[in-house]
């Protein structure tokens, strides 16, 4: 088990949540999402996003509409559906818990130290 592999596993788990987060306020088209995820260093190969978007759309969490662009052909703009928003709210809760747990476990020695004193 090397570090890269572990990182990629973590990213994979996070990707779905992050995509939904990105789309919460701004409907975007695939290349926008790619750019933002890349900036956040969450995406290694771009192609991974497309199957994910299609799956989320088929699950009813996302919807898209065609919009004319200033250059080139019309683009698919993805946005959250209502179901998606509920789902995201659920994930938010889960993330908070997870994040708290991780932070708690990371800092547990500090707490122990304080209590020991």
């Amino acid at each position: 088990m090397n570090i890269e592999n572990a990182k990629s596993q973590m990213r994979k788990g996070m990707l779905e949540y992050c995509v939904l987060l990105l789309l919460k306020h701004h409907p975007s088209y695939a290349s926008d999402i790619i750019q933002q995820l890349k900036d956040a260093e969450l995406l290694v190969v771009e192609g991974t996003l497309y199957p994910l978007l299609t799956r989320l759309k088929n699950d009813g969490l996302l919807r898209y509409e065609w919009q004319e662009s200033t250059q080139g052909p019309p683009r698919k703009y993805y946005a959250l559906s209502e179901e998606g928003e509920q789902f995201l709210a659920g994930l938010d809760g889960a993330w908070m818990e997870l994040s708290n747990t991780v932070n708690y476990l990371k800092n547990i020695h500090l707490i122990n130290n304080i209590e020991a004193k």
Partner: protein
Amino acid sequence: MKKNITINLCGRLFQIDEDAYELLQNYIESLRASFGKQEGGAEIADDIEERIAELFDELKANGTEAITIDHVKDIITRIGKPEELAGEEDETPNGEKEGHRYDSFHTAAQDIREKFRARTAGKRLFRNPNDKMLAGVLSGFAVYTGTDATWWRIGYALLLLGSNFFLFPLLRLFHLGSFSFSFNLTFVLLYFILAIAMPTPNTPKQVLEMKGKDVTPQNLADVVIEDKEPVQRRRGCLGSVFSVIFSILAAIFIGFATFVGIGLLVCLLLIIISIIVVFTVPAASGLSLPFDIGYLHLPELISVHPWIVITFIVGLVLTLFIPLYAIIHMLLSKAGKVQAMGIGQRILWIVIWLAALCSMIPALVWIQQQEREHYTAEITKKYEYQGVMMSQEDRKFLRRGDWNLIKAENCDHYSYSGYYEGNPNLRFLDVFNENCEEVFQAERREAVKPGVFYLEFSVRTEGPGPCVYVIGDSVMLKSMPVSETPGMGWVRTVIENIVVSGDSIAYGVSSDEAFTGQPCRAQWFSATDFKLTRTGDLPKSK
């Protein structure tokens, strides 16, 4: 310098190098194949294609005139290979394998098959152009089975040189030892047949298929790049000598094939013309056809046994057409006009050809058998003519000649054909009895005006006795002169001064002792070419 083409990707036009195009094409194809299995796969592939077009647009905007293979490789790394993308919800493959128990021959065989399949998995059999001594046939097998070509070569050499030593005793074991043929030659021929039958990989995709590697963009790129570098062929001194010999043989082979092809074409045309003639022209059996199938009486047979006749005709045409097609196809593919046949296609044609041959030959044998039986029945069948049984030919002859049988006893036949007046097919009166016991008398009556006549005729006889006679006012007899040369010996004879005061005259031949007054001592006699001529009116009555 590279060939450059324009492609239309999602409605936008791009200039792209040919090798880059090939790589891109394969990439998109493999994406489609890999996503095709899952729900919405086509949509995903479409989206990715859209993305590629967008990236190309960016390149264009940055001043790139033509997209090169490096650009495509960059994009592939950026977007990812199909196996990286499809594995989003990968399940770990079952690592555990069930232990095999050889409890029956069947499972053992299956096991061996599986092992072989694992070695040849995903591979296609090609000749290997990169490691060859002659045509790369053995090397191709080596790549296919994942073994070392050297072993194949050693094995083949042993088979080639030693086969007559150890295969003949083997044959003798099965009581087939009397076969006289050379195994050595067979193996040489086998090599050449395989060299023709096995294709060479022409595209990078086929190179990968030969090696059994997945057709992935990376692998394709490797092959494309490898291909550009000068190919280093492992070929020794012996190999180059062989390759010269091989190319000479190949040239001879092409010439020979062209020759055979023309021959086949001519044969096929003649056969088709003959078949059409046989079925459209009534009584074509008598015509001399370019391809002699008249004697088979196909039109008569087809009404009785349609399927056998159709099998024969279709089989015959296919037997000739398939090699012709194969030769034309081969010559065209050598000239680069068409793509060479795949191995499956080749095997299919060979199977069809064998099927055609194997149905055509028994059908032909059967038809010939029918014909022979029919013919034998025909010549032994007896027909009645004026109360006498005889062959159809004899009856036809006597009826046409208007011969009346006065007596016909102990005769073997009544007409015959032989060399007369330079015509070997002309029939004439002819009777035969081995013991000279034939009693035969036949005559013909002609209506005439009263007058004086003479009768000319040609006769021959093996012994004394038979006569020619004329009945006018009186009966006139003339013995046939005995032939000095047996077989031929026709003599032209005349009976003159025949006085006829009635309105008809009868003439004929007789070997009846009661009529001629002479015992018959001839095994056979013949007569023909009777010609009656009037010389004048009746002499003035006294």
